[in-house]
């Protein structure tokens, strides 16, 4: 059981169809991670349905003290996943929002609450789904490399899925994962926190970048775009200020990394 009271869940057998909730950050900033998620799932013989009306899980408003605004955005997502298929989310943070907070958001409306509960039950973070439902097992055809894994706090503590990202990387023969100091500590993003308290956020992010770089990792992989934009964005800013032309700590979404390593870079 994690700190949100979610008990260890039981997983279904591999379905024929899933929904993809791709998150607004992936849609706008790192769409390749979304497409690679689709490819990873389709390779397993699963049809991926992407309801085009999807926008955002509503978390930014939810964490900023605007529950009504969060509710109206959440409501728009609640009605998109009609069939009883699993909903795969390539983000532990957005997945955590839908799985742990949607039921609370609609607690006052029995009908919507029931809907939110039913949806929450079908929400799977990508790495969790790949490990527990599709038994991801593919040959690593990439070059030998050393990387670090950052698991988002919500993937770790809300979804309780930090072990599955690590397990996926472990399954790749030529990938060495180095563990950074204080691996379980936040990267300092926190959504609007980074904008409200930039100095504190910067201090935390700076330490995170340093601890990852200290491992000698050539890049950081994460299943959460928010953390990636924060960590690699902080590192890139440091590169810029020090006149370093090559990014010293590029970031890559887990979905893209897995697809690249197991598909030889072919489309």
């Amino acid at each position: 059981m994690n700190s949100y009271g979610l008990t260890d869940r039981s997983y279904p057998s591999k379905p024929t169809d899933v929904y993809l909730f791709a998150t607004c950050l992936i849609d706008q900033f790192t769409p390749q991670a979304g497409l690679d998620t689709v490819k990873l799932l389709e390779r397993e013989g699963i049809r991926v349905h992407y309801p085009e009306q999807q926008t955002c899980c509503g978390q930014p408003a939810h964490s900023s003290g605007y529950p009504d605004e969060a509710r109206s955005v959440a409501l728009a997502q609640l009605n998109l996943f009609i069939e009883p298929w699993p909903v795969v989310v390539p983000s532990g943070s957005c997945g955590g929002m839908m799985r742990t907070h949607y039921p609370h958001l609609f607690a006052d409306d029995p009908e919507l609450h029931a809907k939110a509960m039913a949806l929450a039950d079908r929400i799977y973070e990508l790495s969790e789904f790949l490990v527990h439902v599709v038994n991801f097992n593919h040959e690593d055809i990439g070059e030998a490399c050393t990387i670090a894994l950052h698991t988002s706090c919500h993937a770790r503590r809300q979804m309780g899925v930090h072990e599955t990202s690590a397990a996926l990387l472990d399954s790749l023969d030529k990938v060495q994962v180095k563990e950074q100091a204080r691996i379980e500590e936040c990267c300092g993003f926190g959504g609007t926190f980074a904008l409200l308290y930039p100095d504190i956020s910067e201090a935390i992010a700076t330490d995170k970048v340093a601890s990852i770089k200290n491992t000698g990792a050539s890049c950081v992989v994460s299943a959460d775009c928010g953390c990636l934009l924060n960590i690699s964005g902080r590192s890139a800013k440091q590169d810029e200020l020090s006149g370093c032309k090559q990014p010293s700590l590029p970031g890559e979404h887990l979905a893209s990394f897995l697809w690249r390593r197991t598909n030889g870079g072919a489309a």
Partner: protein
Amino acid sequence: MNKVVHLHPMDDFKARSKAVLDNAGQRKNFRGAMDFLQAKRRAQFPDQDEMQGLRELGASIRRYSLAHLPRLLEQLEANLTANGVQVHWAQNGPEANAIALKIAQRVDAKRIIKGKSMVSEEVGFNHFMEAAGIEAFESDMGEYIVQLAGEAPSHIIMPAIHKTKQEIAQLFAEEIPGVAYTEDVDALIQIGRRVLRRKFAEADIGLSGVNFTVAETGTLCLVENEGNGRMCTTVPKVHIAITGIEKVVEKLEHVPPLLSLLTRSATGQAVTTYVNMISGPRRPDEKDGPQEVHLILLDNGRTQAYADDELRATLQCIRCGACMNHCPVYARIGGHAYGTTYPGPIGSIISPHMLGLDTTFPLAFASTLCGACSEVCPVKIPITDILVRLRNEAQARPETEEATLRGSGAARTLAASTAWGMWAQVYSKSGLYKLASWFMSRGRALSPSEQGAWTRSRTPLVPASKRLRDLMKDHKS
């Protein structure tokens, strides 16, 4: 007018935080101390299942106690009174101080020796007594150091954690007559102990905090490591204990699990050096112990949390400090930056009830909601959920029934609420969202290189040339 009231607390908090962020020495002190305490706690809980079972038990005991709070407080008062302890009720800090002063004046006290008590910090006890001409002297080594330096505690368990031994050596050499500068920690401790030994003997009153009060036996339970707590509660002829109303448990058998959780979570100890169970003043056949024992039970806003189904969990707290020891924000800015008696995550959720959201709302937002605090809390307080609830309260429209707490609506500004309203419009209507994201994507070359707070520390966010929804149109499965 709004600006005057609303912006200052945020600016103050940011300025205090920045001062610590820019102080490499303090940053190092806090980081080192947090790493040390995290490791100590981890070593105490090698068995995850045992820990989760004990946390569940501890949380149940605390929830049960709060569910029966009025009855337990009445029972506590009756049994303490039967044991010869005089019970006083204080609605707020000034009332608590006035009660203590009245006792002090009746026994003609000039000197009070203090064991560690955060509640006494909460009510501003020392300053109040000083103003009344009575010395209030801290006897916990950390509190003694902080008092000598004219500061406030920066951590609820380790008050002087922000200080290095060099700073303490300097402080002792400057402030204690006849003391030469030494960085030898054992020597520093001995210097302090010599000063304190004299103070114990001279004191008219001993003041202490309480970790738990036990209703069915009328017992005050107090844990400590230095023996100063036992000295304060047994040497002077009068002992005054002060604590919050929420510290009560029903049965003596409820104490051991909570003690185990407390000491293992706080300092990583299986048990503290001293566990004091105080059940009354000196009896006629006894040769030592105080002649009078008093307990001051303080509300100071706790009933506001108690009255709310969700916020009541705040009062489950047993003051171990594990939440601050694991908080990435506390580790960077330390305790003083919070500007409240109780810092860190627990401080951010308890202080609004004591001081009002109007001055404390910045603290509700001073968290990444990473959940490390909720994860380590030994009595399972859902701290992050409560932080989110307090954010809702801080942003509530003050004139409506949304506002249920003192200072509700303090963070709300027209600009921010309008922006969030527009955000919700765009993201709840897929047509608008598609249009807006299409423009962002097409206009990516025009993305500003300066993006406010984001680009002060990071490279700019640039939208992709094709959104996922565009890529999906071209994608053939």
